[in-house]
C-alpha cells in the first residue's frame, strides 16, 4: 500500500464516518436528556432530501446545510411535541417518523424532480474539489495526509463532537440536560424546567441528525437516492450505545463503524484477509453493539431516566 492509497482509504473512511457521527451525536444529546429518538433514521432521510433540495435550488451547498438543519429542527420539534408535550411513547413516535420519512421523501422526490430512485446530481456539493478544505502541507505524511483534502462536513463533524462535549460536560445547561436524563424529579426540585430542557435537547439533537442527512446527500454523495439513509441512522444509534452515551465515545465508535463500512475495499486492496461476503463485514457494528450491551466487552449503561415520559404530578 502506498502512502496515497493509505490516505485515500482513510479519507474515504472519514466520509462514511461523518453521517454516522452526526446521527450518534443526535442520539447522545437527546438521550442524555432522557428522550429516546429512534426516529433519527427518518430525520436523516428528511435532512438528506431537504439538504439536496436547498443545494439544488440555490446552487450552493451552504443553503443545503441550512435546509438540513431547519428540517431537522422541525421534525425534532414534532418528536418533542409528541413525546414531551403529550407524553407519547417515544419508540412509537420514532417509528412514526421513520415510516413517514420513507413515504414522504419518495413522494417529494417524485413531486419536485419528477424522478424515481435518484435526484439529479449536484455540481456544487461539499465533496466537490472547490468546496473541500485543502491543507496541502499535510499531503505527504502517511495517515495525517488523509486530512489534507477533506469535505467541510467532516470537519464540521469533529467540531460538533467537541461542541456537544463542551455543552454536556462544561456548561450549566449541559449539567441540567444530564440531570433531566438521570433523575427528572430531582431536576424539578432544583427548579429546572424539565420539559424546556428536554425540548432543547431533542430539537438540537435532531438538527444534528438533519446535518447528518445532508452530509449524505451533499457531501459523501452528490445527490439524493431513494434508499438513503440506508440504515445509517441505526448504525448511529449503535455508535451512540457503543460510545457509552458520550460525544467522544460516539466519535470513536463512528470511526470504528465507518471502517467497518469500507472493510470490503480495505480487504480487497491489501489482501490481508480472504475475500469475505459483504454481509459478514456489514453486521460488525451491530454485533459489537450487542456484545457491549450484554457486557461481554465492557459495559454500556444508558441514562437512568432514558425513555421514560416525565409526569410532574406523579409520585
Amino acid at each position: 500500500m502506498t502512502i496515497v492509497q493509505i490516505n485515500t482509504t482513510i479519507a474515504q473512511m472519514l466520509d462514511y464516518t461523518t453521517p454516522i457521527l452526526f446521527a450518534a451525536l443526535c442520539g447522545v444529546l437527546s438521550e442524555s436528556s432522557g428522550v429516546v429518538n429512534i426516529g433519527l433514521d427518518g430525520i436523516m432521510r428528511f435532512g438528506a432530501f431537504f439538504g439536496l433540495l436547498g443545494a439544488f435550488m440555490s446552487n450552493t451547498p451552504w443553503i443545503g446545510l441550512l435546509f438540513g438543519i431547519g428540517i431537522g429542527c422541525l421534525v425534532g420539534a414534532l418528536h418533542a411535541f409528541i413525546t414531551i408535550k403529550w407524553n407519547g411513547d417515544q419508540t412509537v413516535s420514532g417509528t412514526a417518523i421513520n415510516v413517514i420519512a420513507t413515504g414522504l421523501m419518495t413522494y417529494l422526490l417524485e413531486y419536485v424532480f419528477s424522478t424515481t430512485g435518484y435526484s439529479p446530481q449536484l455540481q456544487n456539493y461539499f465533496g466537490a474539489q472547490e468546496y473541500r478544505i485543502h491543507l496541502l502541507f499535510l499531503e505527504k505524511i502517511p495517515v495525517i495526509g488523509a486530512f489534507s483534502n477533506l469535505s467541510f462536513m467532516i470537519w464540521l463533524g469533529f467540531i460538533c463532537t467537541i461542541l456537544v462535549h463542551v455543552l454536556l460536560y462544561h456548561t450549566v445547561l449541559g449539567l441540567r440536560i444530564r440531570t433531566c436524563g438521570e433523575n427528572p424529579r430531582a431536576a424539578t426540585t432544583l427548579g429546572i424546567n424539565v420539559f424546556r430542557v428536554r425540548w432543547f435537547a431533542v430539537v438540537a439533537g435532531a438538527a444534528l441528525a438533519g446535518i447528518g442527512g445532508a452530509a449524505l446527500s451533499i457531501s459523501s454523495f452528490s445527490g439524493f437516492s431513494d434508499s438513503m439513509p440506508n440504515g445509517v441512522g441505526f448504525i448511529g444509534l449503535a455508535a451512540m450505545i457503543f460510545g457509552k452515551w458520550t460525544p467522544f465515545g460516539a466519535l470513536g465508535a463512528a470511526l470504528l463503524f465507518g471502517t467497518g463500512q469500507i472493510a470490503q475495499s480495505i480487504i480487497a486492496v491489501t489482501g490481508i484477509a480472504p475475500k469475505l461476503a459483504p454481509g459478514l463485514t456489514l453486521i460488525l457494528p451491530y454485533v459489537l453493539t450487542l456484545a457491549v450491551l450484554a457486557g461481554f466487552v465492557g459495559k454500556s449503561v444508558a441514562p437512568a431516566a432514558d425513555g421514560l415520559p416525565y409526569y410532574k404530578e406523579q409520585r
Partner: protein
Amino acid sequence: MSENSGTNKFLRIFGIDNQGRKRRDPLNVWVPLISIGLALVVGMIVIAVSGRNPFRAYALLFGDSGLIPGGSAWPREFAELLIKSAMYIATGLAVALAFKGGLFNIGAEGQFWVGAIVATFFGYWSPVAGAFGTMATALGSMAWIAQLLHGAICIILGMFAGGAWAAFAGFLYVKRGVNIVIGTIMLNWIAWFLITNWLVTGPMTPPTQTFTSGTYYVADTAKLFRIMMPTRLNTSIILVLLAAYATWFLLYKTTIGYEIRAIGHTANIGMEAPKAQGINVNRRIVQMMFFSGCLAALGGCFFILGMQYQFPNTATMGYGWTGIGVALIGQSEPIGVVLAGLFIGALRTGATSMQVANIPKTFSNIIEGLAVGFIALQVAVRYYLVKYLQRRRAHADPPAEQEAAA
C-alpha cells in the same frame, strides 16, 4: 356507555368488557379510528398542497383496494389485498403479542426475514424437496398430501427459526439486561445483512445464475395451495386467521397468556405482582418473545411460499415496521390486528393504482406513518375526545339532570 347489549358485544370482541379494563373503555376503539381518519385527512392535504386532486387520488386508492366489490378487476385486487394483509397481520400479531407482555418487539422485521430464508432453504434443499417430489409422483392424484406436508415443514421450521431469533433477544434482555428495543433493532440489521448480502447473493444462489437473481426457486410441493384459481390468492389468509385465533386463545384462555398479560400490566412498575405470585417472569418473557418471533416468521414464510417462491435479490425491508403500525392501530388485540392488517393491506393494494394520478405507491407509508404518529399522540386525542364528548353531553342533558342521575 349504555347497557346496549349489541354495543357491548361489539366491544367485547375487542377485549374491552373485562372488569380490569373498564376504565380504558370505548375510547380504545375510537382512538385508532380517529387516528386513521386524521391520517387520511392529512394525506389529503399533502396531495392537495402538491397540486393534485385528492378526491381523484382517494377514489383510485380505495376503488382499487379490493375493499369494494364489483368490476372485472375486483377478484384480482381482492386476492392481492388478502395476500398482502396476511403478511401484515402476521407481523402485527407478533408485535401485538409482545406489547401485551409489555415488550416492544421492534425486531419483527428481522424475524420475518429469518423465517423467510429458512422457509426458502427447506423449500428447495434437495434432500427435503427431492423426498417430497418423489412422494408426490408416487401418490399420483393424492399429490396434495405431499404439498401439504412439505409446506407445513417449511412453515414450521421457518417459524421455529424466527422464534429462536426473537427468543435470543429475550434471552439477552432477561440475562444480560439488554434493552429489548435496542437488542431487536441490532438483530434486525444483523439478520438483514447476513441474509441479503451473504446468503442470497452467495451460498444460496444457483451457480449458473447471475449475482442478482436471488436464491433457488422452491419446489412445487413447498408452495402454498391456491384457493381462487385465476388469482394468486393462497391459503396464507386462512393460516393467518388461525394464527390470530391461536394468539387470542393463548392470551385470554391459557395460563401462559394470563401470566404474559400480568407481566405486561406491571412491566413499568417492576413486575412485582407477577413475581410475588410465583410466575417465572424471565422464562415467560423468553417464551413470549419466541411466540412473537414465530408469528413474524409466519409472515416471512407467506412471502416466500405464497408470493415469491424464492428469496428475491430485490426484497426491501418494511414488513416488520408495518407490523408495528398494524399492532398499534389494532390496539394489540388479535381481532383489532386482523382488521388493521386488512386496512393496511387495502392501502398497499390501492396505492399501486394511484400511480395513474402521479402519486408514488409509497403514499400508503405516509398514511400509515401518520396513523402511527396520531396513535403516539393518543393522550392528546383522548383528551380532546373526552372534552368533546363532555361538552356534547352537557348540551344534550341539562346539568341538573346529570347530577340527579349520578
